[in-house]
C-alpha cells in the first residue's frame, strides 16, 4: 500500500527555483553595489579631483556622498520587491505542487516586471465619493517609511562600510521601529478615503492590530537592546560578529576593536570574572552561538570562561542554569518578534486588514493601477525590512555562522579577490570597490534575511487566519504578558551571568 502511495518526487522544480533566486540575488546585489560605488565613491572622487581648491564643489561632493545610502536603498527596494513577488509566487507554487509563473522570460524570470508594467499602464480609478488627496497620499505614506527605515539597516548589514557610515545613528533601532510603525497611517487613510465599507473596516482593523502588536514587538526589541547594551543597529550587529575580532591578536585593529567592545558593553556590566580577562577574541570560535538568539556573547562568554576554568563548580552550575534560561528567553523573544512583525506587516495568519473572505480585499479594495502597485511594493518591502531587523537583532547581522578559524580561509580568499579587483581599479584611477568583510557581511545578511522571507512564505502556505477578536486576545492576553515576563527575566539573567 505504501509503495503504491509513494508520490513521485521531483527535484527539478526546486532546482529551477534556486537557480532563479541566485540569479536575481546576483542582480540585486550587483546593482546596489555598483550604484552605491558610483554615487558614493567614483563621482565624488572625480568631482574632488576636478575641483582643485573650489570649496563649493567639494561641498557638492560631500552632499553626494551623504545621499549614497538613500540612493542605494531606492535602487534596492524596487529590484528586491520584484524578486520577492516572484519568489513568493514560485515558492508558493512549489509548496502547492504547482509550477507557478513560468512563461515570461526563462522560468518566469521577468514575470513581475511584466506585471509591474501592466499595473503602471492601468487606469487610476478614483472611486465615487472618495477623498482624492487622501486616496493618493495613502500609498505614499504606506511606502515612504520603508525607504527611510532601511537606511540604518544598510549600514548594519554591510559591517559599517564607509559608504553607508554616514547614517550610523546611535539610536538606530528606535528610528527603524518608529519608521516601521508609520505605514499603518497610510492604511487607515486609504481605508477611510476609499468611501467603501469594507475598506474602512480593513483600515480600522489594521490600526487596532498595529497598536496591539507593536507593544510586544517593541518590548522584544528593547529586551535585546537591554541584553546587548546598545541601541545602535551597527553595534548590535557588530557585537554578534566574531569575525571582526578574529585573528587580530597583535594588530592595532585588535586593540581598536577591543576598545570599541569595551566601550559598548562597559566592563562594569559584566559579573566577575570578566571575559576581558581571557580576551574577547576567544569568542570568535563559537560561530553562530554568538548570535543573540542564543543569548548573544553572554552565553559564549560563559562558555569561554568555563573552558578556561575560571569558574568554581557552584558558579559554573548556577551560571549554566542562568545561561540555559537565557537561551530559552532569547528564542521566545525571537518568536515574539517574528509573530509581532507578521501582524505588523499584515501577513498570514494576521492578514485581517485584507481578509479576503470577509472584507473582499480590505483597505486596498478600491485601489488600482500604480497606487495599488505602490501598496504591493511596500507590503513586500516591509516584509523584507522586518526580516532584516530580525537578522540584525537575533541572527548576527552580517556574521557568518561558522567559527572564525574555519571561516578564515574563506575570508582570506575573499580578501585576495577584493584586493585584486581594487588594484585593477586603482590602476585606472578609480576608488576601491570591494572590501572583504563588507562583502561577506552583505552576502550572509541577505541570505539570512531571505531565509526568514521564505519562512514567511511557508507560513503563508500553511496557516489559516485568526479572527479579529482572537487576534486581539492573542496579542493582549498572551504576547504582551509574555514580553513583559521576558523583559524581566532577561534583565535579571543579564546580571547573573
Amino acid at each position: 500500500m505504501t509503495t503504491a502511495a509513494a508520490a513521485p518526487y521531483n527535484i527539478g522544480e526546486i532546482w529551477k527555483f534556486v537557480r532563479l533566486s541566485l540569479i536575481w540575488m546576483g542582480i540585486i546585489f550587483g546593482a546596489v553595489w555598483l550604484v552605491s560605488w558610483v554615487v558614493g565613491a567614483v563621482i565624488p572622487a572625480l568631482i574632488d579631483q576636478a575641483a582643485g581648491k573650489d570649496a563649493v564643489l567639494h561641498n557638492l561632493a560631500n552632499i553626494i556622498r551623504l545621499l549614497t545610502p538613500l540612493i542605494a536603498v531606492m535602487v534596492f527596494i524596487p529590484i528586491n520587491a520584484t524578486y520577492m513577488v516572484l519568489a513568493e509566487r514560485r515558492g508558493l507554487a512549489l509548496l502547492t505542487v504547482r509550477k507557478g509563473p513560468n512563461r515570461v522570460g526563462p522560468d518566469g524570470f521577468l514575470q513581475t516586471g511584466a506585471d509591474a508594467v501592466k499595473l503602471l499602464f492601468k487606469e487610476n480609478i478614483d472611486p465615487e465619493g472618495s477623498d482624492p488627496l487622501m486616496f493618493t497620499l495613502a500609498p505614499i505614506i504606506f511606502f515612504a517609511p520603508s525607504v527611510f527605515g532601511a537606511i540604518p539597516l544598510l549600514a548594519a548589514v554591510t559591517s559599517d562600510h564607509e559608504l553607508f557610515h554616514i547614517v550610523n545613528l546611535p539610536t538606530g533601532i528606535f528610528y527603524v521601529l518608529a519608521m516601521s510603525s508609520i505605514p499603518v497611517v497610510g492604511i487607515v487613510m486609504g481605508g477611510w478615503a476609499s468611501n467603501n465599507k469594507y475598506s474602512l473596516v480593513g483600515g480600522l482593523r489594521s490600526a487596532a492590530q498595529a497598536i496591539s502588536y507593536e507593544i510586544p514587538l517593541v518590548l522584544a526589541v528593547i529586551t535585546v537592546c537591554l541584553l546587548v547594551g546598545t541601541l545602535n543597529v551597527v553595534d548590535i550587529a557588530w557585537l554578534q560578529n566574531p569575525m571582526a575580532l578574529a585573528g587580530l591578536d597583535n594588530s592595532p585593529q585588535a586593540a581598536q576593536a577591543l576598545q570599541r567592545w569595551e566601550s559598548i558593553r562597559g566592563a562594569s556590566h559584566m559579573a566577575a570574572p570578566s571575559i576581558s580577562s581571557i580576551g574577547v577574541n576567544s569568542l570568535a570560535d563559537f560561530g553562530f552561538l554568538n548570535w543573540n538568539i542564543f543569548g548573544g556573547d553572554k552565553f559564549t562568554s560563559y562558555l569561554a570562561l568555563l573552558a578556561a576554568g575560571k569558574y568554581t563548580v557552584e558558579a559554573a552550575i548556577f551560571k549554566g542554569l542562568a545561561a540555559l534560561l537565557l537561551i530559552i528567553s532569547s528564542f521566545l523573544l525571537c518568536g515574539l518578534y517574528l509573530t509581532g512583525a507578521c501582524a505588523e506587516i499584515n501577513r498570514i495568519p494576521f492578514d485581517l486588514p485584507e481578509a479576503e473572505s470577509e472584507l473582499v480585499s480590505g483597505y486596498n479594495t478600491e485601489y488600482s493601477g500604480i497606487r495599488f502597485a505602490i501598496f504591493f511594493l511596500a507590503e513586500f518591502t516591509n516584509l523584507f525590512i522586518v526580516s532584516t531587523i530580525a537578522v540584525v537583532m537575533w541572527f548576527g547581522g552580517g556574521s557568518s555562522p561558522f567559527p572564525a578559524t574555519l571561516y578564515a580561509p574563506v575570508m582570506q580568499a575573499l580578501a585576495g579577490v577584493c584586493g585584486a579587483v581594487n588594484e585593477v581599479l586603482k590602476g585606472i584611477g578609480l576608488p576601491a570597490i570591494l572590501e572583504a568583510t563588507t562583502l561577506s557581511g552583505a552576502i550572509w545578511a541577505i541570505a539570512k534575511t531571505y531565509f526568514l522571507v521564505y519562512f514567511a512564505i511557508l507560513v503563508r502556505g500553511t496557516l489559516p487566519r485568526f479572527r479579529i477578536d482572537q487576534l486581539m486576545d492573542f496579542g493582549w492576553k498572551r504576547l504582551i504578558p509574555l514580553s513583559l515576563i521576558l523583559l524581566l527575566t532577561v534583565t535579571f539573567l543579564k546580571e547573573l551571568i
Partner: protein
Amino acid sequence: MFALVGRSIESLRQVARGLGTVLKHAAREPITKEFPDTMPQLAGHFRGRLALAVNPQTGDHLCISCLQCERVCPDKCIQITSHKSPETNKPELINFKIDHGLCMFCGLCTEVCPTNCIINTNDFEMADYSRESLVYDLKKLTLTQDESAHYYSKKELPMPKPKPKPAAKPAAGAAAAKPAADKPAGKPEAKAEAKPEAKPESAEAKPAAAAPEAKAAEESAAKPAETQAKAEDSAAKAIETQAKTVETATKAEETAAKSGETQQKAEEVLKAAEASTKTEESSEKPEEKTREIDLGRVPAKSDEAAETKAAEEPKKEGEQ
C-alpha cells in the same frame, strides 16, 4: 499556568507539523498541466466537439437523415436539412448544422444515432471570435476516414455496416469519401460477414476462422491502393476490424510510416504486416506514441496480436 505552557507547546508542535507537511510537498511532482504545450490525455468516451463520422472502411457518409438527434437534443442545437432522393426514395442529407455555442455536450444525440454517425470527438478547443463561427456545417463536421476509424476504435463502437449500394453515396459526403468511391463493393461485405462469424467463437478458434477472409479482403484492398497517387499515406491508416486493439493499429501505422515513399514499398509493408513474426517486438512501442489514455486500451496478448494482425485492413486515403 503549566497547563497553559503545555498547551502552547502542543500548539507550536502542531503548527510545526503542519509547516513540515507543507514543506514536504515542495519536492513533489507538480500537478500543473501546461496545456497548450502538453495536450491532456483524454479518455475515449470524453464528450467533446460533435462530429459526423464516415464509414472507416468505405468512406461513405453514415448519416441517414433520420432526424433522431435533432429531435432528442435538449438545447435544439442541431439542424438537419435533407430531401427525398428521387432515385432511392430515401431521405438524403443536404446540410447538417450544429451550433456549438448552444450545445451542452450531453451526448444524447450520439446515443440515439442509429448508425453511430454523430459522435463526440475528443476535441475541446473550439474558441473562436464570433458566435456565428461556432455554427458548424456539414463540411466542418464531417470527419475523415482515419479520424472516424480512430474514434470508432477509441469509443469501442461496433463498425458500421456498409450501405447496400455504394453508388448511392450522399452528395455532400463526397468531399470526405471521394477516394473510397472506386473501391470494390465486394470487399467490405466480405469483411462484414467475417465479423459476426468470428465473434461468438472462443479466442483460440478465432484466428482460424477469421484469417482467410481477412487476407482475401486485404489483397483486394491492396489493389485499388496502387491507383492512388499517395499510397504511402494509405498504408499508415490501418483499421482493425475484429479485435479492435489499438496497439495493433498504431503498430501497423508505425511500421508503415517507417517504410519508403514509393507505392511498392507500401505494398511490402502490407505483406510484412501480415507476417505474424513481427507482432511481438513492435507491440510495445506505440503505447507512448498515442495520445490516448491507457484506460481505454486493451492489453495485447501474443496470440491475439497475431490474429488481429492478420485481420488488419490497410486503408487508402487521399488526404494530405
